[in-house]
């Protein structure tokens, strides 16, 4: 893992209100370049809202956050160009082929034709998908889709990639192969910001943040969290913290 101390995300009292409801309540934290940062919370804890603000999709009500060097309030377009994003729900276009998807997303991110060509070749080789490059994405097995979609999300080589429950539904072997891709990207310096409902995956993160009722209830390494809460595993830590929640979703 990169030892660089450069912060790629800094949030300072970042807040989002919807009317009387405070979805995200003045959260402050920072993420270092090259970290795998796990972002956990019960349904309704404010995770999605916080993540939408960090991706430049939702303007904060108050507070501030810098992502990849840009302000989420005033430079959201810049942020979108400089991050990668993938979720289980939104990833690739099913009715485009593997190659067409790569070309499309490369174009969106402003990559040159030459660069897209090179990257496409590199990724297809890595995933051993060369012979399937003209296959429609909808006919690929789920596991391949997830891996391809991660590669596409980082083909423009962003410094930071957001992964929203990337491994939902895939088999346990594929889930691990996927995490090895995350490890490898982080090893090369890409920062990974990831949400998951699988508590074993929280252990693979450099640091884990747990949100409860719109606030950050804990933020530490997995080992540190286990120690603080005298817990055998992350599942126990999560249950202990999330049960403090007063608001229901």
């Amino acid at each position, binding site marked *: *893992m990169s030892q660089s101390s450069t912060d790629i995300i800094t949030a300072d009292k970042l807040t989002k209100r919807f009317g009387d409801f405070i979805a995200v309540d003045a959260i402050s934290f920072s993420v270092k370049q090259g970290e795998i940062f796990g972002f956990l*919370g*019960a*349904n*309704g804890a404010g995770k999605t809202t916080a993540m939408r603000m960090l991706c430049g999709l939702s303007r904060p009500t108050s507070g501030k956050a810098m992502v990849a060097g840009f302000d989420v309030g005033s430079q959201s377009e810049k942020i979108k160009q400089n991050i990668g994003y993938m979720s289980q729900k939104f990833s690739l276009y099913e009715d485009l082929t593997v190659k067409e998807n790569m070309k499309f997303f490369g174009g969106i991110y402003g990559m040159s034709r030459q660069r897209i060509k090179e990257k496409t070749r590199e990724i297809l080789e890595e995933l051993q998908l060369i012979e399937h490059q003209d296959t429609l994405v909808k*006919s690929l*097995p*789920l596991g391949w889709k997830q891996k391809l979609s991660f590669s596409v999300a980082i083909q423009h080589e962003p410094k930071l990639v957001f992964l929203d*429950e990337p491994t*939902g*539904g*895939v*088999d*346990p*072997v*594929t889930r*691990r192969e996927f*995490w*090895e891709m995350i*490890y*490898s990207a*982080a*090893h090369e310096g890409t920062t990974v910001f990831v949400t998951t*409902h*699988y*508590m*074993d995956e929280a*252990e*693979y993160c450099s640091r884990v943040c747990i949100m409860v009722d719109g606030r950050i209830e804990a933020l530490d390494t*997995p*080992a540190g969290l*286990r120690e603080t809460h005298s817990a055998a*595993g*992350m*599942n126990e830590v*999560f*249950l202990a913290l*999330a*049960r403090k*929640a007063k608001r*229901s*979703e």
Partner: protein
Amino acid sequence: MTAIDIQHIRKTYPSKPSPVMALDDISISVTKGELFGLIGPDGAGKTSLFRILTTVLLADSGVASVMGLDVIKDYQSVRKITGYMPGRFSLYQDLSVEENLHFFASIFNTTIKENYHLIKNIYVQLEAFKDRRAGQLSGGMKQKLALCCALIHRPEVLFLDEPTTGVDAVSRVEFWDMLKHLKQEGITIMVSTPYMDEASLCDQVALINKGSLLALDTPAAIRADYGEPLWAVKTSEMYKLLQDLRAYPVISTAYPFGEWHHITLSGNRKIDELKDYLLSRGHGKLELVEAEPGIEDVFMKKMK
């Protein structure tokens, strides 16, 4: 007594270039009163099996019955005694919470009052929202309402398709508590889940992948069936460790498992040799212990 009997069920879906085998010769028998888990990832065939058992899909071949009633010949009777909570939210979005419940009670010729004791624990959590449209509920609330609607006619057998998918760890624990309570009421439950750790909460489980049955037994018996020593190893650099393990010739499998990597060795290799190798690769804080295989270890082994 057998509550659910599945014999040699096969189901394919047309697809190009070749048909998709959704269920490949599946036979399962579930005893009355049991909490039975179907454990597997997306595409395993779980939903197809539920749809066949709830009489809304025909198998290509094989037979299935619920409480002795054939799912084809006696489909009307099967529908009366079963409750089904599909994976996708399938209540009426434009009806309120109370209206939905009322609707399901009346099509089964019963009333909310008659079986209220069954849903009471769940419904009290919804009561404050009883006038809200179902479409406006949060995910967890929708799930609770769907369970109430599947229970309101007091079914003998309950089918729940991935009720905990995408649900956070706290709500998952609560949901399994509700299932335990329903089991005590004598209801036979078949529940599917992609979360391997939930297998241990079932009396019996079927591990299923790509339409095939990988294992069928009690969770304890399945874990005991791993069949070879399993080791857990950790050091201060887990990614490097994984790469070093993969590069070591006698390693048969190496997978991340939470804070550990689980490994198996080929042949009769001494674990001390592996220790020496890892130390020579410069790993600090090395821990290497024998591990209890979990359901997920078995699943991964049988997937191959």
